[in-house]
């Protein structure tokens, strides 16, 4: 896969179709991969990488890159393609300035899970199809099953279909029957007090690093409400829980109806807060109250929050359909 992508990227760069390539390169460790923009063949030869740890969603970078002169080649995974199409719908990216190569995805691995399984001193992790080969400073190498170390969001993947592309590498997948709302339902089944405890437990770890906001492909406002000094969410004073509640409710609300459920927020959270659960709660509610809707799936349908019908449910529905009292 990596070689095919590399070859195609070099071809398109050399024949002048694109000016730059948006893909991934290795960071400090082989499993610590960051998005990168390549502008020359040498850079691609040197750094270009694609493996099980290329998890970052690239579509948000295209907001800026598609405004530059010349085309940008972007490799988009299924998740990224949903986000890209959603950004197109919001007129945030210029489709004509982007050359999209869709890449098939069978789930990304989570290096933290490998570390948590007790393997110490990891030097290198190689992606070998279904297996991950871990090299440590103590022994030669250990082989692990990739499916045991998939990222949380990939365990209940909603779709393996790249929804928008100029060409595909690998075979395009299908929309899957996922059980992504299971955890949301489990929380709803708790009593109100237990839910409060659960979320305080999770949200109180928030260090307000804003990584969830910065990485989110739906959060593309140039001026964010949280950049306001008076927003009162930046103190992280050990006063009480209000700040966290406020920040996370508003963050999730601002992307409600536009969130494609790519799971980036949870992936980047340094405190491992399951932030996508808040987004999924909104998605679940909207599906239930206003009909099935998947953001980024197409360019025509109206998102639920900029739409209405005369006989929408009343807010008092929460008393019947909300979680346990």
């Amino acid at each position: 896969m990596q070689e095919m992508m590399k070859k195609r990227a070099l071809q398109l760069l050399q024949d002048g179709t694109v000016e730059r390539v948006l893909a991934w390169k290795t960071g400090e460790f082989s499993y610590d991969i960051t998005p990168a923009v390549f502008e020359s063949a040498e850079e691609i030869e040197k750094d270009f990488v694609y493996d099980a740890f290329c998890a970052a969603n690239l579509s948000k970078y295209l907001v800026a890159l598609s405004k530059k002169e010349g085309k940008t080649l972007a490799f988009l995974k299924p998740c990224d393609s949903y986000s890209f199409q959603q950004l197109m719908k919001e007129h945030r990216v210029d489709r004509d300035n982007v050359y999209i190569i869709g890449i098939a995805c069978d789930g990304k691995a989570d290096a933290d899970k490998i570390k948590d399984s007790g393997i110490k001193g990891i030097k290198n992790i190689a992606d070998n199809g279904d297996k991950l080969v871990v090299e440590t400073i103590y022994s030669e190498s250990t082989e692990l099953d990739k499916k045991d170390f998939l990222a949380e969001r990939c365990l209940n993947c909603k779709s393996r279909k790249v929804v928008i592309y100029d060409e595909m590498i690998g075979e395009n997948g299908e929309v899957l029957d996922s059980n992504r709302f299971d955890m949301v339902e489990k929380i709803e089944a708790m009593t109100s007090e237990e839910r409060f405890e659960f979320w305080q437990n999770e949200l109180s770890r928030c260090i307000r690093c804003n990584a969830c906001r910065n990485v989110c492909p739906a959060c593309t406002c140039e001026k964010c409400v949280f950049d306001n000094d008076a927003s009162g969410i930046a103190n992280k004073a050990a006063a009480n829980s209000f700040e966290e509640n406020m920040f996370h409710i508003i963050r999730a609300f601002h992307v409600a109806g536009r969130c494609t459920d790519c799971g980036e927020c949870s992936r980047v959270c340094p405190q491992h807060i399951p932030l996508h659960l808040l987004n999924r709660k909104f998605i679940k509610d909207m599906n239930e109250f206003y009909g099935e809707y998947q953001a980024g799936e197409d360019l025509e349908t109206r998102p639920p929050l900029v739409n209405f019908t005369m006989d929408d449910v009343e807010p008092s529905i929460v008393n019947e359909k909300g979680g346990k009292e």
Partner: protein
Amino acid sequence: MQIEKKEFKPTIVAFCCNWCSYAGADLAGTNRLNYPADVKIIRVPCSCRVNPMFILRAFQRGADGVILCGCHPGDCHYTTGNYYARRRMTLLFSMLDFLGIERGRTRVEWVSAAEGAKFAQTMNEFVETIISLGENKRLEDLRCKK
């Protein structure tokens, strides 16, 4: 020594739309209908003006309950404002409930300019609910406490 037992006096914030509910509150007043003085009315141009953040801010600054009143669906002065407000508030209330905030603390009621009696009755009921729920502890901000 006797410990003085203080009766709980809730703070209720009511966002009322200028065209219907605010006039409804006015009518309740001119009709001399009683409703508790704990209700603090904030006039907004339309129920749709109410940003979810307003509701959270009200709780932060010490409200024990927040109620949003607007024109009946279909009667909005701006034609469609309250339809959008209805969707937004449904989702917000559902999220608050999901986070374990007592669901009785938030409410939406449609009150027209002719429904002074309904306004007074709604406020009486709502204040009663809030008194039974007690002080807002789960969404309070200690820095804002007097």
